[in-house]
């Protein structure tokens, strides 16, 4: 009986670790490798394993779709991350003032993250739509020269995505920042008060530097949100007008499943994966550096 029990105790950790690991390997690694492989082949509608070299990559990099999508990704990524962090931090600092009804506000601001991207995109689509949304409302109030037609404006369409994404993501940033602010030793603030620092200086010089690691964590999470963005655009602008608000993930889908250019689409997907890695590797390096510094301390 005892021996059986011991054997079970030895086996159990393996049972817990291996099946999920194998499943993740199958889904993540195998399909990533397969996609990478396909990206070097002449595949069109169906996989075709004849070698094509880097032709798909050069073709994608030269294509207008990819260039517009990637430029958009830079605009959208930068605006979204900066604004979502700024709004999130502002909300967190305001809520941190021990206001009444804190739980209510926290719930309200955190709620958008519980709404799916498709719903977010659809609702913001209505708001931005000149014939039924905000423009219509203002017109009906009597200000008929008012224009708010970003969603159909080539130069502004990408910013409608930014607005919707910031609305969706800043509550999440707020929650992380608030947790960070709450973890700051209250004595630090008291010490700064006695040292004669005002509220602005207490935050900028004492509190926010203390939660530096939270900034990095929020930055990385928002960036990978940005790079993966797909359904929000589909629901809000469908990449339009024309290609004005398309993003790399939409290009991947477009080439793979609508144009029947599996090789090209796969190449685009691999490049998208590459850009995610560009974000995550510095973060991993930062964590390793932090751990080393932490270890050196002890």
């Amino acid at each position, binding site marked *: 009986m005892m021996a059986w029990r011991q054997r079970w105790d030895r086996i159990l950790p393996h049972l817990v670790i291996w099946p999920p690991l194998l499943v993740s390997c199958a889904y993540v690694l195998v399909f990533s490798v397969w996609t990478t492989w396909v990206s070097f082949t002449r595949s069109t509608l169906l996989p075709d394993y004849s070698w094509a070299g880097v032709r798909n990559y050069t073709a994608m990099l030269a294509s207008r779709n990819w260039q517009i999508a990637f430029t958009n990704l830079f605009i959208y990524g930068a605006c979204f991350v900066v604004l979502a962090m700024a709004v999130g931090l502002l909300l967190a600092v305001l809520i941190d003032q021990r206001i009444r009804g804190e739980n209510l506000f926290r719930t309200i601001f955190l709620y958008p993250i519980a709404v799916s991207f498709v719903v977010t995109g659809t609702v913001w689509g209505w708001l931005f739509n000149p014939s039924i949304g905000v423009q219509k409302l203002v017109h009906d109030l009597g200000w008929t020269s008012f224009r708010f037609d970003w969603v159909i404006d080539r130069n502004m369409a990408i910013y409608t995505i930014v607005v919707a994404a910031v609305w969706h993501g800043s509550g999440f940033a707020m929650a992380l920042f608030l947790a960070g602010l709450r973890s700051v030793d209250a004595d630090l603030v008291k010490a700064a008060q006695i040292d004669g620092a005002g509220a602005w200086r207490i935050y900028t010089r*004492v509190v926010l530097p203390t939660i530096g690691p939270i900034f990095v964590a929020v930055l990385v999470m928002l960036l990978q949100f940005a790079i993966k963005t797909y359904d929000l655009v589909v629901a809000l602008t469908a990449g339009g007008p024309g290609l004005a608000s398309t993003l790399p993930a939409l290009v991947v889908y477009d080439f793979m499943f609508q144009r029947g250019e599996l090789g090209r689409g796969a190449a685009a997907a691999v490049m998208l994966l590459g850009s995610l890695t560009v974000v995550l590797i510095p973060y991993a390096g930062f964590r390793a550096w932090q751990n080393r510094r932490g270890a050196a301390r002890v």
Partner: protein
Amino acid sequence: MSALTIRNVSKHYGPLPVLKDINLEIDSGEFTILVGPSGCGKSTLLNIISGLDTASEGMIEIGGRPMNGVAAKDRNIAMVFQSYALYPSMTVRRNMTFGMECRKVPKQQQAEILDRVARLLQIEALLDRKPSQLSGGQRQRVAMGRALVRDPLLFLFDEPLSNLDAKLRVEMRMEIKRLHQRLGSTIVYVTHDQIEAMTLASRIAVMHQGVVQQFADPDTVYNRPANLFVARFMGAPPMNTLAARLEMVDGAVVAVMGQGETAVRLPAPDVAQTWAGREVVLGIRPECITEPTRHFSDAPGTTVTVAAPVEMTEPTGAETIVVLRLGGEQALGRVAPDIRLTMGETARFAVDTRKICLFDPISEGRIA
């Protein structure tokens, strides 16, 4: 000159009273210690002095200036926190100059002050390190340095040694005392450690349940505690408090503990005459019950020898704590370490009767 005056200060959170009508007058250059068990209100009082918290009633004066409505930064105080509260993202140097920077002290002067304080605390070598790279004792020094770069009217210390290990605590305690003697600054220091209070203070305020039980020099607090709470709180081991009955024998007051054969009689102070025939609580410090060869004083009647059964002994090395029975009640004595006592046997002890205190069993205040 009075450096700090606390007048009728009360604090309550909702219906819950934390401080009840506190009155303290602290002179310039004094080292005052607020001591008491946790929850007695001592830290709240310190926060009210610092301006980080506000009193519900009453007023605070620092250096003769009323402080009601004056922000912490304008009170000309410096504070050392229990957690040290060093700014983790700044170097030791920046930690110490941050306050001067906020107060717009010229750079040149900042450097001079930093230099002087760093030398005083011997932390010159640490100036470019971050707090996370310092040991507990070093952090403690930097925290004090941050307070010392200011030349305030009042230094406030909030349990500054309680995060250090026992050995370091004793070292830092001596260092704080030396600093105070050297700088002659006015200090209000909060602790729950009565040994810290005894060793450092020029005056001790013993607090309990939001009330100052006694505010006096360490000697008085120790030898003439104002009430039973102070008697039992100060000293380790604490004062023995035994039920006794006062009797008049040949015109002298005698405290009797126990009944019949085992009764113990000790001469009591004459001022307790009016209490003759009544029940009291007799307080006596463990070091006043010791081996029979000990000679306390040349004055007649100082030393009385009693016989008492020994229940247990605890040798600590420097001395031996004896648990004994005085008239049926348990009491502690302290004897020299070379005295060998057998458990369960009756031994003789010398009692220093000068140090006997008597308390009213109902009001718990000291009678004599």
